[in-house]
């Protein structure tokens, strides 16, 4: 059986490196279905990734892809978007890549509201390097650099993105992949900085040191913990503890998009300078 998304994969590079039970491939699949559904063209769609398990996706995707260095996918994507504003530019990153080493770029991309779509695969761990805690590891959970439990508080990345100025903020899970696919589509269609956090299980580096341990159980737990924004609004902070609030969490269609503002300012300055030269010529 050939899946439709295989037309967007470098099949000669398969099998992929992701472990059995990993949620990255599930979300990467959803992204590719979104690309097909939206009818994005290969010639003007660019995927940029950093370093880590989720960022490896760029290596398998047969679109224009840049596998950049650790933490720097967003600045690379920003450069591409500024040079070719008509391109659809999507960033695939993870919690370590996007929120730790590249965290600075994340908040500034949000602040500028540049028309990029950032899909951050949150597996709450550095998977590729062997399970060190990340800025989204839950307190008390075990990581190789926190053998007796993480004691630093984690980021709520969606709240961070909203506060920093992103105009489309959503959260989905690998467990509810249809919803996540829909959120990715909405994010790509949104004009402005779209931040989509995709919560994915990492049974190898997270599950086996924490509970639940098995891939299916992790997905089940993700599903059980998920709650819609509407339902979440009725719960107290205490009741919301351990819940994964999903759906579109914030949307603003009014805030000016960076590239467009830049083009307007640029055109205005050119016109002004042109007038001045014309006046000087008359003199």
């Amino acid at each position, binding site marked *: 059986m050939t899946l439709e998304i295989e037309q967007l994969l470098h099949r000669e590079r398969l099998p992929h490196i992701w472990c059995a039970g990993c949620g990255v491939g599930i979300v990467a699949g959803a992204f590719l279905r979104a690309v097909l559904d939206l009818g994005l063209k290969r010639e003007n769609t660019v995927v940029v990734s950093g370093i880590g398990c989720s960022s490896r996706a760029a290596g398998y995707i047969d679109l224009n892809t840049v596998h950049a260095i650790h933490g720097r996918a967003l600045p690379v994507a920003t450069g591409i978007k500024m040079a070719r504003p008509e391109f659809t530019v999507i960033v695939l990153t993870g919690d370590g890549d996007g929120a730790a080493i590249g*965290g600075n770029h994340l908040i500034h991309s949000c602040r500028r509201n540049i028309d990029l779509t950032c899909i951050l695969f949150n597996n709450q761990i550095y998977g590729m390097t062997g399970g060190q805690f990340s800025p989204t590891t839950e307190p008390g959970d075990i990581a190789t650099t926190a053998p007796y439990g993480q004691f630093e508080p984690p980021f709520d990345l969606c709240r961070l993105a909203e506060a920093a100025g992103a105009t489309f903020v959503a959260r989905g899970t690998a467990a509810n992949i249809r919803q996540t696919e829909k959120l990715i589509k909405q994010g790509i269609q949104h004009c402005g900085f779209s931040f989509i956090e995709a919560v994915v299980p990492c049974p190898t580096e997270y599950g086996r040191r924490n509970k639940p341990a098995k891939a299916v159980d992790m997905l089940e737990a993700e599903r059980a913990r998920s709650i819609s924004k509407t339902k979440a609004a009725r719960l107290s902070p205490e009741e919301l503890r351990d819940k994964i609030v999903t759906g579109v969490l914030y949307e603003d269609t009014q805030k000016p998009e960076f590239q467009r503002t830049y083009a307007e300012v640029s055109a205005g300055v050119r016109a002004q300078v042109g007038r001045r030269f014309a006046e000087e010529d008359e003199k």
Partner: protein
Amino acid sequence: MSGQNTETLAVTGNEAAAEAMRQIDPDVVCAYPITPQTEVVQLYAQMVADGKVSSEFVTVESEHSAMSAVIGAAAGGARTMTATSSQGFALMWELLFVASSYRLPIVMTTVNRALSGPINIHCDHSDSMGGRDSGWIQLYGENHQQAYDNCIQAVRIAEHLEVRLPVMHMYDGYVISGAIGPLVMLSDDQVQDFIGPFTAVNPLLDPKRPVTVGPFDGLHGWYFEHKVAQNRAMDRALKVIQDVADEYGELSGRHYGLFEPYRLDDAEIAIVVVGSTAGTTRLVVDKLRAKGVKAGMIRMRVFRPFPHAAYASALEHVKVVGVLDRADSFGAQGGPLFLEIRAALYDNDPRPQVLPFIYGLGGRDIFPDNIEQAFAVLEKAAQEKGRTSTGRRYLNLRED
């Protein structure tokens, strides 16, 4: 010395480095995971968590922060260590200069790995060679034992009052870091006695003597003199490195120099090589010697400060020297070690020929046959009249 430990352990190179760190037990360790260094930090995290060491362990959000944090800790008067590889090393680059110019005796384990791009996680020396002008002392190890021995000696060298410069010690990613090899350790007490207690020099946290570290002192300030002072410390480090090695030799029975010659005394052709490839080269030297070829070698250990006079004297009788670089300097006449060796021999009379070889970039295998090919080039050059082209020769490069 009596009471020497002779038990041989089977460990990975990273385990060897982590064990050295455990015995040193620095005050502060800050690090960020990167392949193939990760295991060092991970093992150390476990030691911290298990109370086997008393270090403050900070897992920061990038290598830039890791080096910044150890600089802060060292300026505050703490004995500090970190570890990295490749892109992590590159991300630290800006801070490397800050650490050395503040004269902070930080010790860093660098597990050598290629730099992007394309992304490559395997061994070459591009990362640390890129930091050769950063003012750090550089020690390169060949194997597991040297990863351990260099790490311990690095503390003494860095903290020596004649030096006070940061030291990085290197070993090959995967080939040493991940492979299992033999290690003989000192006892914990021996290491503690050897390194001694840490003495902070002009630390920040002395309320009776407040200091400012690294301020802008204007166009007419002392920046230039400061740099000269750094370089003088580098010069003094040569003797300190040897003194520390001699003392360590007394203690451990393992003796180190600034470099390690092998069958060099009557050699007509010789290879200078860094890291784990020295082991392979030694085998080839033996094989050629058995055939009557006067082949020899030097394993480079100390790259900064570069002991140029010692090389000039060690290689003065050699007709042709081949330098094996596991890093390239694009657009230069050859790799970084080649350039140093060639410059070091310039004043020799007669002046040996020095030929550049590049090998093993991005983890490309280097086989005994490849090193024999290099020796064959040297042998031919030694027999020919006139001087041979100094164009790069690549070992085990695929045909187009």
